[in-house]
């Protein structure tokens, strides 16, 4: 059971568009914190800028809504100063992988004891649908009107290579698996990374013939295949670009977290 209430109801209504994946992420997180018996007074959320970064505002816990891309740096300080707190970072693909890319790889490297949830919808939602570092090749966005010609990042591969202790990726349709990974992530010592592939009918769907939520979700299904323990070293970076994204738990290890190397 969750100790305390999950939603900060006097902040409602949420700002998210109909069909946004963040609603599902919040519901899965609520269930995960309940399964992990988290005390809401002893958890703190940190987020940057973007749609998903607004999500902690609707959760009844201490939360720090920070500057664009820096959530992990703020969270690092918060966790080190207050080691008894469970610190959860909520981020998006633009926030975490573009402006915050440096903080992301270094947080993985330090293996600092945080859970980071990245709502990857392949696009900048809040600023109006611009290209992100995970936008698949060919996708039309506000800043790639002729189709994206940049190679995308695979964030889970990056987290594994960077040194995170726990890395998993699911779509919002894989609710049970997603919830389970959040539970394992929040319990795991060290850096845990849970990537959630999520629809954005308003900004990505509208420009790519999938404005209906179901079409957007079906597109996510068509991009992905489920394979636990997928070995990133065996794949080409073009795999993601070619529209084949593995989902699953990719790594679970017990490297010493930051600050516990000499213990």
């Amino acid at each position, binding site marked *: 059971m969750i100790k305390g209430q999950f939603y900060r109801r006097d902040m409602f209504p949420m700002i998210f568009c109909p069909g946004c994946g963040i609603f599902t992420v919040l519901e899965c997180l609520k269930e995960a914190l309940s399964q992990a018996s988290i005390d809401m007074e002893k958890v703190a959320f940190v987020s940057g800028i973007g749609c998903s970064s607004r999500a902690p505002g609707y959760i009844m816990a*201490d939360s720090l809504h920070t500057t664009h891309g820096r959530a992990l740096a703020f969270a690092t300080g918060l*966790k080190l100063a207050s080691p008894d707190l469970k610190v959860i970072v909520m981020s998006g693909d633009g926030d975490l992988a573009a402006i915050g890319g440096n903080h992301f790889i270094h947080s993985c490297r330090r293996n600092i004891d945080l859970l980071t949830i990245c709502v990857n919808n392949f696009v900048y939602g809040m600023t109006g649908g611009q290209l992100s570092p995970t936008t698949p090749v060919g996708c039309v966005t506000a800043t790639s009107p002729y189709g994206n010609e940049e190679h995308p990042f695979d964030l889970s591969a990056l987290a594994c290579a960077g040194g995170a202790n726990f890395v998993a990726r699911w779509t919002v349709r894989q609710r049970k698996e997603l919830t389970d990974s959040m539970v394992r992530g929040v319990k795991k010592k060290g850096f845990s990374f849970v990537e959630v592939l999520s629809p954005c009918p308003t900004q990505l769907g509208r420009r790519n013939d999938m404005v209906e939520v179901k079409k957007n979700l079906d597109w996510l299904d068509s991009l992905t295949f489920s394979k636990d323990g997928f070995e990133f070293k065996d794949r080409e970076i073009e795999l993601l670009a070619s529209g084949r994204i593995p989902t699953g738990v990719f790594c679970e290890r017990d490297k010493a977290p930051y600050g516990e190397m000499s213990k």
Partner: protein
Amino acid sequence: MGVKKLLMGDVACAEGALAAGCNFYAGYPITPATEIMVHMAKRMPESDGVFIQMEDEIASISACIGAVWGGARAMTATSGPGFSLIQEGIGYAIMTETPLVIVDVQRGGPSTGLPTQASQGDVMQARWGSHGDYGIIALAPNSAQEMYDLTIEAFRLSQVYRIPTIVLGDAIVGHTWEVVEMKKAAKTKVALPAEKPLSTAYETPFYVPKFPAFGKGYMVHISGLAHSEKGYPDTESADDYTRLIRRLVNKIRNEREQICSYELINPNAETMIVTYGSPSRTVYETVKEMHDVGMLRLKTVWPLHERAIHEFCREAERVLVLEMNLGQIYWEIKRVLCEKNVELFSKVGGELPTPEEIRGTLQ
């Protein structure tokens, strides 16, 4: 009375922070501030504090702010190029009223500039470097002793006013070795709110609300967005925004008399030299050898102590502003003493003005 030790200014600054109860340091190496970080790397674990070397200066100030919300007293130190990077974090700390100390050991700019040479080129950046309207506090030490004392004072002020406070040193005071008396400091307690969970994260009408640290059951939402007293994002109401910004500015503007300190020699002498930081060291010689020359040294550069400037310079026949840039505080003094002819003595390139140079200008 404290122990006396021969210390480098940068090290004195780190020791001052420790005396003030600093228990979190995040930084990134940069000349001429690195000695602060190197000293903290050694000393923090000895005093049960946290030291972390971050991936850049933006991460450093961000980690410090996060640590403060986790209940720590935090400091970071940098120089020009890093000071440019941390402006983002300063704005966030202003908006969220996060108390912390930022040390800028100034070097010559713009850009990578003169890494090993002193300057006072960041004094306006310290005031206005982050976007938007805000008030800020900046102190300018002129000795290793003051690197110690004013760092302690910076912690006190940051906590009293819930504001990032800047120590504006430079390569000269940072690298000067002097005997420093390491006085004990009173550790100001941050006032915590009584109500849990907190219904208003920013109580009004108080200028400075109490600090609802995380993990204590306050359940607050803290945001860099414009926010209501509850702390919730509030980007629609011009009235709420105006009230917030006026409070953030006025909590410093209206407290200038309490915040500011200065050193005064021969007030209203025939010639008054207004200066701050390292160049004042030369003026000590000038006032010794020249008759009817006085000095007003601003220990607090921001907020500007307009009353003191006016009061102690208005009778002077000449007012000379001395700074190691091409004229920054000069324009502020000119603004305050609008009816007077205010002269500028500039020297850049890293060396202090010499007594001969100042005498030459005055004669």
